[in-house]
């Protein structure tokens, strides 16, 4: 696939050097790994922000232990203050808001999407469709570089005067414009520029994935023979392609509001701190919300669909039987993709929405729950009649099912606008979407890492420590997020710097009970324990690269899909000989077959001569 070089000094077929091979690579597998490593680093950073915020929520106004002094030295006294006794290390509201905004931004745009789509999508999709690489390898490289640049800009914003963006990951105008007005450019400026890079990166990735999946499938790999993972990536590609550009446009408009005195999102007559804001006005804050959530809701499915894809692959392989209802799952994922574009305003029920519009959006919201239920039910039913093997990837995949179930179901009372009147912007919302993304998608990502690790490195990750990692993560994830439903139902609003202490019941005033606010403490301890529970994973991940148990076959899990029919690790160009596909993706335990798995490319009878590779012709 490499274009020929016109440099006379470079002999053809030269082994690429370190930079060419690992930094400026156009190989989808290397780019996938780049995305994976960078994404895991950001996942860790996003989590670290939360560990510090959880201290402030559990013990408001107390200096943060261990890192408090360091934060003070690095970020300065505007961000990190002193307690009454003069000890430095207290998180100030500005820092809390910054960390909150950046936790969301980092987790969504720099960790989960890059891991689910960039890393797994890049590494696995071309292998699963029998392609030698992505359709546009150089575009793929640029996509990663844009992502990396976006990440650097976001990280740099912590250290500029005024700190990182403080207006939530949703960056609602006018707050995003009037917050930290004294400093320009400020954290919000960096956030917008970072987002432009990140969205451009997703856009390039999306175009590439869609083209690759349409154009480069191996001979015989018809649409209904595609592994569900590829379907999930395909729909995700369309969501990224169509939903992200509006926010890119909106971000540029907000940049105008912030720096150039435009008023796209600023209405007439704003009075900030007792002063008329000198802007022309005439804009609409709701326009920003519409543009944001037009990205924001499909984004939710960008976060979850690749996870469902990973889980489906692992469940098929470890139940040793076909996925039940494969076709209805494919139609469901397509329906979800379509419907996800017309549900966005359910994030905006309380912005003065009348009955008609609200009815439309809550009807579509209820409709989108049906294909999600179908997918989840199909996965549950697929377990019936299985011969289940409980290895680490399977444990994470099985853990995903009830956890995503909780996340999905708790979306219902938020999707009905009348019940949303009570639950809007409470901890119930936080618990709901974290169940979808944390023990949901992140468990799927862990499952995927344990599952495809042998294909990447030629070694297994340690099974015992993998199980320890699963058990501890499962327990602590639930201890973190379950109590938040109780807090939310009791009426604790999110984004409260003091963890809701202001709204405690007090002499004669109805308010939050001690127990509800007190839950902040065990939740925070569970967060820190969850952090420690990741140590076995981190050590296992690096240790196994050189010391893990070696695989004895290129197909160590005895799977059917094409990525396991390559050498390990797959060389540049992936397949040694042209691939032809003869059957569906999950032909496990076919009656009468010698083994309990029939690879997609195994010829049906006595092997006929393979056809020419359609990709090379």
């Amino acid at each position, binding site marked *: 696939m490499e274009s020929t070089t016109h440099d006379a000094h470079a002999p053809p077929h030269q082994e690429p050097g370190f930079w060419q091979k690992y930094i400026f690579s156009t190989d989808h597998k290397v780019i996938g790994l780049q995305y994976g490593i960078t994404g895991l680093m950001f996942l860790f950073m996003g989590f670290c922000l939360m560990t510090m915020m959880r201290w402030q929520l559990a013990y408001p106004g107390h200096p943060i232990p261990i890192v408090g002094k360091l934060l003070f030295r690095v970020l300065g006294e505007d961000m990190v203050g002193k307690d009454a006794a003069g000890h430095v290390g207290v998180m100030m509201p500005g820092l809390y808001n910054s960390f909150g905004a950046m936790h969301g931004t980092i987790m969504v745009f720099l960790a989960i999407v890059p891991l689910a789509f960039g890393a797994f999508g890049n590494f696995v999709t071309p292998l699963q469709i029998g392609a030698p690489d992505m359709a546009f390898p150089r575009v793929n490289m640029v996509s990663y570089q844009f992502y990396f640049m976006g990440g650097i800009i976001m990280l740099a914003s912590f250290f500029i005067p005024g700190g990182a963006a403080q207006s939530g990951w949703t960056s609602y105008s006018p707050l995003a414009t009037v917050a930290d007005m004294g400093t320009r450019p400020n954290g919000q400026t960096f956030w917008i520029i970072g987002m432009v890079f990140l969205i451009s990166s997703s856009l390039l990735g999306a175009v590439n994935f869609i083209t690759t999946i349409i154009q480069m499938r191996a001979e015989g790999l018809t649409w209904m023979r595609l592994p569900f993972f590829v379907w999930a990536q395909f729909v995700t590609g369309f969501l990224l392609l169509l939903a992200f550009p509006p926010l890119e446009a909106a971000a540029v408009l907000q940049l105008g509001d912030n720096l150039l005195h435009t008023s796209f999102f600023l209405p007439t007559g704003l009075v900030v701190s007792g002063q008329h804001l000198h802007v022309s006005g005439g804009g609409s*804050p709701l326009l920003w919300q519409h543009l944001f959530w037009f990205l924001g809701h499909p984004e939710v499915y960008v976060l979850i669909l690749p996870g469902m894809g990973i889980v489906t692959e692992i469940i098929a392989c470890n139940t040793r*039987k076909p996925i039940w209802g494969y076709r209805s799952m494919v139609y469901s994922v397509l329906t979800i993709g379509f419907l996800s574009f017309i549900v966005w305003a359910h994030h905006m029920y309380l912005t003065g929405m*009348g009955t008609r519009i609200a009815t439309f959006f809550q009807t579509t919201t209820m409709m989108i729950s049906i294909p999600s239920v179908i997918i989840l039910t199909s996965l549950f039913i697929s377990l019936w009649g299985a011969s*289940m093997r409980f290895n680490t990837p399977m444990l994470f995949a099985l853990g995903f099912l009830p956890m995503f179930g909780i996340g999905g179901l708790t979306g219902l009372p938020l999707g009905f606008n*009348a*019940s949303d009147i009570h639950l809007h912007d409470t901890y119930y919302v936080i618990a709901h979407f974290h169940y979808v993304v944390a023990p949901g998608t992140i468990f799927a990502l862990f499952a995927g890492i344990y599952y495809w690790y042998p294909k990447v490195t030629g070694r297994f990750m340690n099974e015992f420590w993998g199980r320890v990692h699963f058990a501890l993560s499962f327990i602590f994830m639930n201890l973190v997020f379950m109590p938040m439903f109780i807090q939310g139902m009791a009426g604790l609003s999110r984004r409260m710097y003091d963890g809701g202490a*202001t709204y405690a019941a007090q002499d004669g005033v109805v308010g939050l009970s001690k127990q509800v606010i007190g839950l902040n403490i065990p939740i925070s301890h569970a967060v820190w324990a969850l952090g420690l529970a990741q140590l076995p994973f981190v050590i296992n991940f690096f240790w196994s690269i050189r010391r893990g148990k070696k695989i004895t076959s290129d197909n160590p899990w005895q799977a059917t899909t094409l990525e396991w029919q390559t050498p390990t690790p797959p060389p540049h160009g992936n397949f040694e000989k042209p691939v032809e596909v003869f059957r569906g993706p999950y032909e496990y335990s076919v009656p009468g077959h010698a083994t*309990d798995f029939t690879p997609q490319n195994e010829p049906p009878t006595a092997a006929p001569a393979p056809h020419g590779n359609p990709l090379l012709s």
Partner: protein
Amino acid sequence: MQESPKKGLNWWLFFASALLLIIPTCYVVYNISPANMPRNDSAQGGEIDHLITYVHVLMGALFVGWLGFFFYVLLRFNKNRQPVADYAGVKSHASTWLEAVVAIFEAVLLIGFAIPVWSRAVDKFPKENEATVIKVIAQQFQWNGWYPGPHGVFCTNDAKFFSGDNTFGLDKSDPHYKENFIVAKDLVVPVGKPVLVYISSLDVIHCFACKPLRITQDAIPGMVFPAHFTPVKLGTYQINCAQLCGLSHYGMRGTIKVVSQTDYDKWVAEKSKAGASAGGGYE
């Protein structure tokens, strides 16, 4: 991975499953029980609570069903008890019916509860002469309540009247200006009578939320949204800001004090005498 084949039930897994089944059930029941929901002291809040309860019953039933099935298959269809997988798997189409039932249940909740409740909340406003009318104006980081006074007529306001001590731009030449008054943070309303609030904001987006009175409405600059609720008990309730609005968002606390009609009238008369000019509502 070479376990010796065992035919018996895995008791450890069985007890873990049973426990994991019981915990979420208790959890759902506790979560929606009056022990955890904040008390509802409003007339319109009951139907919101009913919807929340019914949705949770649906969720609980589905989840417990899934979990029960899940644990059964984990116990029954593992490698030890089922060495060879069944290629065909489930042949019945019961799940299609299950999905249809879920869809119907959702449709009933939607048409029977969510839409009418919403319609009453955002379309069926009480008549101004039968309600207590207050203009609630949010600003960083304070709730302001602008009351019309004993005669119930608001003076006009416009940005052109804005000045440092008149941030809401009230028209001081308006005859009703004198009996209008503005209170900061602490609103007072009479019991048993609908309260109609016109919610707006001076600066950024806030959200006017009073959980025990089951009222939540965004306050968006440049727009005015009506919202209504009917308090049914005497008491003091907290208003919290439910939309991130800046550094002191967490401290943007207000109160709604529900008093008897007589006490309310006395309070209005007293405040109205002091008038809007008395500090313009600032403490």
